[in-house]
């Protein structure tokens, strides 16, 4: 028998309290009209009470925020010059003492209660929201997929090789960041490489639901990890696992531009089944004498036929490179791998200011 009385009584209690909360929120949670001044331009006029990040998104100014405003990714850092209030305990783990002194805040945590003045880097103001359509989706390995999104509106993107976009998971308010694997010359489409994260919301959606022809919204481009084109140094690229995407973009762009810089690319994977874009890279190395490709496997499956390098990628770099003094490095992969590689590169004479990395 369904206990209807219990359901009705419980709903009455919860509903009544909900009404109380809604009424209070209406009177306590709003702060009247507030102005947000960005880089001393014309202010955005908003009804206070929400976070700065939310108002910026509402006004189509997209600040990186992989966690959707929960102060867990620490991406949405901006300089708040006035009106931000005190730094919250939720922000302190992501801010250095220097940043706090300069007024840097996580804008997902800064509530607009009065007029706010903030600085937004010009690059963020160029970020756009794109309506896209899935043009291709295919398996690269057992747990990595390649996705091509055709841009519909706006239909062109200006980006630098190595930057990333944020993928809006349909039906949720969640975003996830993915590096673009396509070079900037792909003006009307972008390519992503996505590895399945067990239990992951976005990768779960991509692997189980996403199909060719689906419409997807993305924002971008974001990121400080991109190819420094004005430099003349030789280039070292290191990718681990699914960290190939930005490196692929960088390398493709370099050779499209007919670079004369020496490019060495190390790719670390676990077993033969995790190798992808392997033949393409070997082919590229055959065509361009200034490109070297070295793949290394760290945990081969029994029966794997492999005559290349083995071991962790930092030990292979240590073995294969002599001096790194006249090189700059672009690293993308898991934090442990990047930390180990940086150690090796510093030991081999690379200046820390020439090492660019993207940990994920």
């Amino acid at each position, binding site marked *: 028998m369904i206990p209807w*009385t219990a359901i*009705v*009584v419980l709903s009455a209690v*919860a509903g009544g309290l909900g009404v109380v909360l809604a009424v209070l929120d209406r009177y*306590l949670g709003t702060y009247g009209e507030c102005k947000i001044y960005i880089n001393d331009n014309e202010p955005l006029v908003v009804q206070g009470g929400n976070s700065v990040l939310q108002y910026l998104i509402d006004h189509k100014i997209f600040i990186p925020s992989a966690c959707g405003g929960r102060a867990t990714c620490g991406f949405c850092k901006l300089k708040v010059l006035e009106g931000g209030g005190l730094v*919250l305990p939720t922000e302190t783990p992501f801010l250095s003492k220097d940043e706090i002194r300069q007024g840097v805040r996580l804008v997902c945590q800064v509530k607009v209660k009065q007029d706010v003045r903030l600085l937004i880097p010009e690059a963020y103001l160029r970020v756009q929201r794109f309506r896209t359509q899935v043009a291709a989706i295919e398996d690269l390995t057992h747990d990595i997929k390649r996705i091509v999104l055709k841009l519909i509106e706006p239909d062109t993107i200006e980006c630098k090789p190595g930057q990333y976009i944020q993928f809006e998971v349909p039906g949720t308010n969640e975003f996830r960041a993915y590096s673009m694997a396509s070079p900037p010359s792909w003006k009307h489409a972008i390519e992503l490489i996505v590895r399945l994260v067990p239990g992951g919301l976005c990768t779960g959606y991509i692997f189980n639901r996403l199909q060719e022809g689906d419409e997807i919204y993305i924002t971008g481009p974001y990121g400080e990890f991109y190819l420094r084109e004005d430099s003349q140094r030789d280039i070292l690229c290191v990718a681990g696992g699914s960290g190939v995407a930005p490196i692929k973009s960088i390398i493709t762009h370099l050779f499209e531009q007919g670079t004369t810089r020496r490019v060495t690319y190390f790719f670390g994977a676990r077993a033969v089944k995790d190798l992808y874009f392997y033949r393409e890279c070997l082919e590229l190395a055959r065509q361009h004498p200034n490109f070297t490709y070295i793949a290394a496997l760290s945990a081969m499956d029994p029966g794997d036929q492999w005559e290349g390098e083995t071991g962790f990628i930092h030990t292979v770099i240590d073995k294969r490179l002599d001096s790194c003094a006249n090189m700059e490095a672009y690293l993308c992969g898991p934090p442990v791998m990047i930390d180990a590689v940086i150690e090796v590169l510093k030991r081999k004479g690379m200046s820390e200011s020439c090492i660019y990395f993207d940990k994920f």
Partner: protein
Amino acid sequence: MSPYVIFFAAIFTNNIALTYFLGMCPFIAVSRDLKTATGMGIAVIFVMSLTALFAWPVYHWLLVPYHVQYLQLVSFIIIIAALVQVVEMIIERFSPTLYINMGVFLPLITVNCAILGLALFMILRNYSFIQSMAYAVGSGIGWLVVIVAMAGIRTKLVFAKVPKALEGPGITMIIAGLMALGFMGFAGIVNLQ
């Protein structure tokens, strides 16, 4: 029993923190600083009073008439959770500094067993509405008194030589035990059953 007696007993002889050891998490964590402890204590008084104000009518006017008393636990938890939201809104609006200082412990009042304990005791002991209110305000004040006393002691403790292994929560628990022994001295005056 007179509401005055209940009020007095809730503060001293049946102090919810020191006789039942309820609400220990914020009691230990937020008693480092006198001002924050006072703010937390006031917030607890507020939530306790509101809890009694809502929980008593819900139990006697809704759960009892419809014979669904077994819903008391879930109803009380919903009430407390909603009331903590109310307190959070009020504090954020009127004292942002206190809001920041309390940090995560403010929403934690929701899972503070002192509040739920209060609501359940009030029903268990068959208090009338007035008695319940006296018990709630008294318990809140009792919790404020001990957390402020603890914060006072802990500010002096900075100058004491505490063994390394006992620093922080360890010594605080020992002090709480000693305070409980001290409060036992009030026990002969009156006792709530």
